[in-house]
């Protein structure tokens, strides 16, 4: 399978270098030099993943991510030169699935993309947790009979927790299984996604009853 990547980056040299290196990794890379172009092209053509630089002229990277997210669950990786916690969290809150900081290496980026695109795991029976019904085969989640729209990343996060059947899943295990990170001390990625997931599946996201935090250990699904 050939993976099509849309690279939204205003710096021409970086665009070229990343395109070349990602092509070496076996991806087909399309380039967009502005946020507007990125939004337009992703609507016209089917891409597997979008890489968005956060500091774009015109409509900024965050805006691009938000727009793409309203359209569907297309995997998005944010590329940023800033590593301030605020920027990273803002990018993830807007709906990005993952982030990388410059100077990024194409092989690292490629590993992240592959992790995001990995198949949804073995076929499993539908799982019911309280009002929640997860159908892994169709990739559907219903709450009290109503469909809940999750991104692929959110879906896999939920599935990993549901699959553990109430046992604790550590942060490291989740990062490894969902994002393909070897081990990464930074768990903000997970925190933000868990917050987003709770907003979608919990009756009261501030007082979760399904996705429970186990202090100092990780998370588990509530029965």
């Amino acid at each position, binding site marked *: 399978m050939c993976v099509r990547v849309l690279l939204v980056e205003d*710096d021409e*040299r*970086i665009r*070229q*270098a*990343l395109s*070349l*290196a990602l092509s*070496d990794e076996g991806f087909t890379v399309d380039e967009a030099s502005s946020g507007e172009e990125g939004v337009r092209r992703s609507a016209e053509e089917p891409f597997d993943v979008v890489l968005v630089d956060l500091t774009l002229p015109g409509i900024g990277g965050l805006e691009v991510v938000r727009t793409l997210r309203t359209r569907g669950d297309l995997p998005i990786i944010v590329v940023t*030169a*800033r*590593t301030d*916690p605020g920027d990273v969290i803002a990018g993830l809150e807007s709906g990005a699935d993952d982030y990388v*900081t*410059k*100077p*990024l*290496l*194409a*092989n690292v980026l490629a590993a992240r993309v592959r992790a995001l695109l990995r198949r949804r795991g073995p076929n499993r029976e539908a799982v019911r947790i309280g009002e929640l019904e997860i159908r892994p085969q169709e990739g559907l989640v219903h709450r009290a009979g109503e469909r809940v729209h999750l991104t692929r990343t959110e879906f896999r996060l939920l599935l990993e927790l549901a699959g553990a059947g109430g046992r604790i899943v*550590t942060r*490291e295990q989740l990062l490894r299984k969902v994002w393909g990170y*070897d*081990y*990464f*001390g*930074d*768990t903000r990625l997970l925190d933000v996604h868990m917050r987003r997931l709770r907003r979608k599946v919990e009756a009261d996201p501030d007082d979760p009853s399904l996705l429970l935090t186990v*202090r*100092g250990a990780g998370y588990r699904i509530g029965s």
Partner: protein
Amino acid sequence: MRLTLRCRVTLLSGLGLLLVTGVLAFTTWTLVSGSLLAQREAGATREAEAHARLAGGSPTSSGLAELLAGPDSSILVVGPAGVVTAGRAVEPSTLPPRLLHHPPGSARITVDGLPVLAVARPLAGGVYVELSALRQLDGTLAVLRAALVAGTAGSALLGAALVSQAAKRALKPLAELGFAAGRIADGDLHARLPRQDDPDLAVLAARINSAAEALERRALRDARFVSDVSHELRSPLTTMVNSAAVLRRRCHRLPGAAGTALELLTSEVDRFARMVADLLEISRADQVDDPPCRVALDALVRNVVATRTPVALDLEPAVVLGDRRRLDRVLTNLLDNAERHAGGAVLVSVRPRGSSVRLAVEDAGPGVPEPLREEIFERFTRGRNGDDPGSGLGLALVREHVRRLGGRVWVEDRSPCGSRFVVELVLRSSDG
């Protein structure tokens, strides 16, 4: 060793008080005891005079016995016919000769260990001597003496204690100044001296505060400069490392000098990128952390090591409070360092020790010579082998992170060979 100001003030005031009250007590003692003795003596003299008259010319022992005042008293009449005594036996030779040969007179003497007052009166052809016990008076004087000594010592101690308290209060602003100055010296650039009411101290505090502000501004400016430079380098570096990756794949197509040059170029680009990443990290190292959380150190070590070349582990449960990312970087950098300079770590251990926990990374490399053990934690100190691919910031970052975690790091010898890098942190609990 020189005593502290407070000690000296306390000691001096205590001594001064002791001197003054001592003189007062001594004077009181002299006056009171003198007057009591004089009274007693006058009474005894009057009594002896009366008794001497009653005894008459040639007294008998039984006659004298009737005149005795109490069991401890004695009367002696030394006449030409000899000595007649009554009451407690007293040898005339023990009496002062002055009394016997030149009456009248009186003297305080001790007979058989008891204080007595001896009064001598002339008698026709002899001397009448009456000894009366001073035990009661001595008892009174002993109580007085004890009271005066206790009073003197007590007032000196009380005075010293009061002065010590007053000095403590007076010196408290100085102690606060010292504490804040110490925090600034320890690198807490936000620390300021508390505002002082005392005009003398206010000037001092203001000066130190303005110096601290200048220092903080300068440190911030330096940090921002490093951060800005590193940020600006990120974009060209992204282009460079990715172009280098593309070139490296095709390296074999460029034989000879061009190929070698290309290899040099690409590996230096990678090193450059690492250096910038470390520089950025070190310029961020002083930034405020997320709130510290409980981290199981043994689990963290297992997670970090799981992604690397396998290494022997000796882990005991230990929970510390801190920033997970910092702990992760500390261990990663120590393992990188062992790989780069000592052929890899041979053992990673976590062991609680009293109120702290030690994380140690051991290697079987050449070891770190004594004079370099402090230096290697400085920025841009590299190993002696010329082809060191590190950024020269790895151990400096370790120290910076460990400092922010409230611990310390050092390197020591490992037997039989190699070195052991030890990170000591405060232990929260060891129950896993």
